[in-house]
């Protein structure tokens, strides 16, 4: 381990890194690129007109974007980590927390090194960003007005980073309690690069073909929720059921953890949705209100559904419903008013409850309902955006079916279909690849022991 050969290689590598970093720091300085011919509207259609004068940083907007970025980080860890791991059995608690945490780490680096460039870099053939912004070269403190005119380019980058983090983290709910940790690491790195980055480019990147088509996705219904939820379905199918699924009881080991997680998700989602306005003004406020309203309505809708159908309202139901509502309002948040938000929320609560009920009949084991909530909820939300969007709320958006523009629903449906296709197909292929090379699933013995001990030599509680 301390053979001189290895040492020398290590040293050389360190020097290389230093060299790169020094150069790149210069690069960062030199990012004065004039955003000259800004051809397309700012992302997520914020109504700010591109000003002819040099862009000036607004401290309020920047503060809002940084705050929102922190909030979205809190959604993944601790939010999602708690929400998910509370529903698991005691022997697998850490494994899923670990997955959320490691995704945060992996994607944070991937995004800085090449992910952001692939997703938002200068467009190539309308399908992918170029590699020009690798290592954040050219992505510095000045605004890049085509994306966000009043905040540092890096603020926009880091906000998007948090989205790139949470998306694969959502998938972990589907393969919980049975995936090998090494396989997980490889899968995530592939998935985020091969599936998330291109999809983000299509929908949000300047020049992306779905964006050009006019698909509305305010904060990530297709890019984040459909992609992760449908990928989750593929995972559940390819990995197969957990041992004892359907025979042994597998009740949540700690629901207060799950409630805490759901609450932090709600809290953080204000950053997710209202932050997507990219400025601290009326649009952010409107998205904030829509988000809160839809979450509340969906929680109640799920609650009432199970009260009627099962006889008792449950805490896990209310929490699940709230998350379903937050998912569904995500693509619509900046385009709809408070009352349509209520309808979107009610739809989400009822539809996702049914989806979760049907799961058992369908026979796949989506352990924590990544598909049932994010896949289905995201799909409903994306379509509902085509129903309820209104230029009265956001002049930068479009009208939906109920505001006289049925075409929008078609566009939304198309982008939903594309997302499903790409997410399912792509994930399926990647999983097979990882299965053949690394092996996806732990041994039966390791699974019965629990992943905490078998993968990490730890136990959650002692």
């Amino acid at each position, binding site marked *: 381990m301390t053979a001189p050969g290895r040492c020398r290689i290590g040293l050389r590598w360190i020097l290389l890194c230093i060299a790169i970093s020094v150069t790149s720091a210069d690069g960062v300085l030199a990012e004065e690129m004039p955003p000259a011919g800004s051809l397309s509207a700012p992302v997520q259609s914020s109504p700010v007109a591109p000003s002819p004068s040099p862009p000036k940083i607004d401290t309020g907007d920047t503060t809002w974007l940084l705050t929102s970025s922190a909030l979205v980080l809190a959604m993944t860890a601790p939010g999602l980590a708690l929400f998910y791991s509370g529903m698991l059995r005691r022997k697998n608690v850490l494994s899923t927390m670990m997955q959320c945490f490691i995704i945060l780490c992996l994607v944070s680096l991937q995004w800085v090194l090449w992910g952001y460039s692939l997703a938002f870099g200068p467009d190539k053939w309308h399908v992918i960003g170029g590699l020009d912004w690798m290592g954040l070269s050219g992505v510095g403190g000045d605004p890049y007005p085509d994306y966000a005119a009043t905040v540092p380019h890096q603020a926009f980058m880091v906000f998007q980073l948090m989205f790139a983090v949470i998306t694969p983290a959502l998938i972990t709910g589907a393969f919980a309690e049975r995936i090998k940790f090494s396989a997980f690491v490889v899968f995530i790195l592939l998935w985020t690069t091969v599936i998330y980055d291109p999809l983000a480019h299509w929908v949000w990147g300047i020049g992306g073909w779905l964006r050009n088509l006019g698909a509305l996705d305010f904060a990530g219904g297709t890019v984040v929720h459909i992609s992760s939820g449908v990928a989750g379905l593929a995972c559940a199918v390819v990995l197969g059921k957990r041992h004892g699924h359907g025979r042994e*009881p597998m009740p949540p080991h700690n629901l207060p953890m799950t409630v805490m997680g759901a609450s932090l998700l709600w809290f953080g989602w204000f950053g997710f949705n209202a932050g997507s306005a990219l400025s601290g003004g009326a649009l952010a406020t409107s998205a904030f209100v829509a988000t809160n309203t839809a979450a509340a309505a969906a929680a109640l809708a799920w609650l009432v559904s199970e009260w009627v159908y*099962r006889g008792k309202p449950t805490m896990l139901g209310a929490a699940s419903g709230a998350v379903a509502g937050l998912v569904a309002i995500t693509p619509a948040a900046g385009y709809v008013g408070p009352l349509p938000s209520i309808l979107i929320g009610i739809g989400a609560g009822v539809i996702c*409850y049914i989806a979760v009920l049907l799961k058992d009949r369908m026979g796949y084991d989506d352990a924590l309902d990544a598909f049932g909530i994010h896949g289905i909820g995201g799909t409903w939300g994306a379509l509902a955006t085509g129903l309820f969007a209104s230029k009265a709320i956001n002049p930068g958006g479009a009208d939906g079916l109920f505001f006289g523009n049925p075409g929008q629903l078609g566009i939304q449906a198309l982008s939903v279909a594309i997302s499903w296709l790409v997410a399912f197909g792509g994930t399926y292929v990647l999983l097979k690849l990882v299965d053949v090379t690394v092996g996806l699933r732990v041994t039966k013995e390791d699974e019965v022991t629990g992943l905490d001990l078998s993968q990490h030599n730890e136990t959650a509680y002692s």
Partner: protein
Amino acid sequence: MKLIEAVIKPFKLEEVKEALEEIGIQGMTVTEVKGFGRQKGHFETYRGTAYKSEFVPKVEIKVAVADSQVQRVIEVIMRHAKTGSIGDGKIFVRQLDSVVRIRTGEVGETAL
């Protein structure tokens, strides 16, 4: 000596303990257990999946007593653990060959 083991409802523990203390019992050991019996469990529902939990939380009291006291202890437990509804529990009585107090090495009834 006998070893008396009683499985009772958890919320009766305090009362039983005090009653035993009053008749001079100076020690006992308590374990949290799950009981299965005529008293049926309950359903729990998590996201639409219903689990039947047939185990009911119970508490097991273990008391070692001199032969002379067995009857009194049983009576006291019965009186104070009883609610009259199903699931009140059982009392098991067994022979105890010997007892040692670790601290002093005393053996037999003086060790109780």
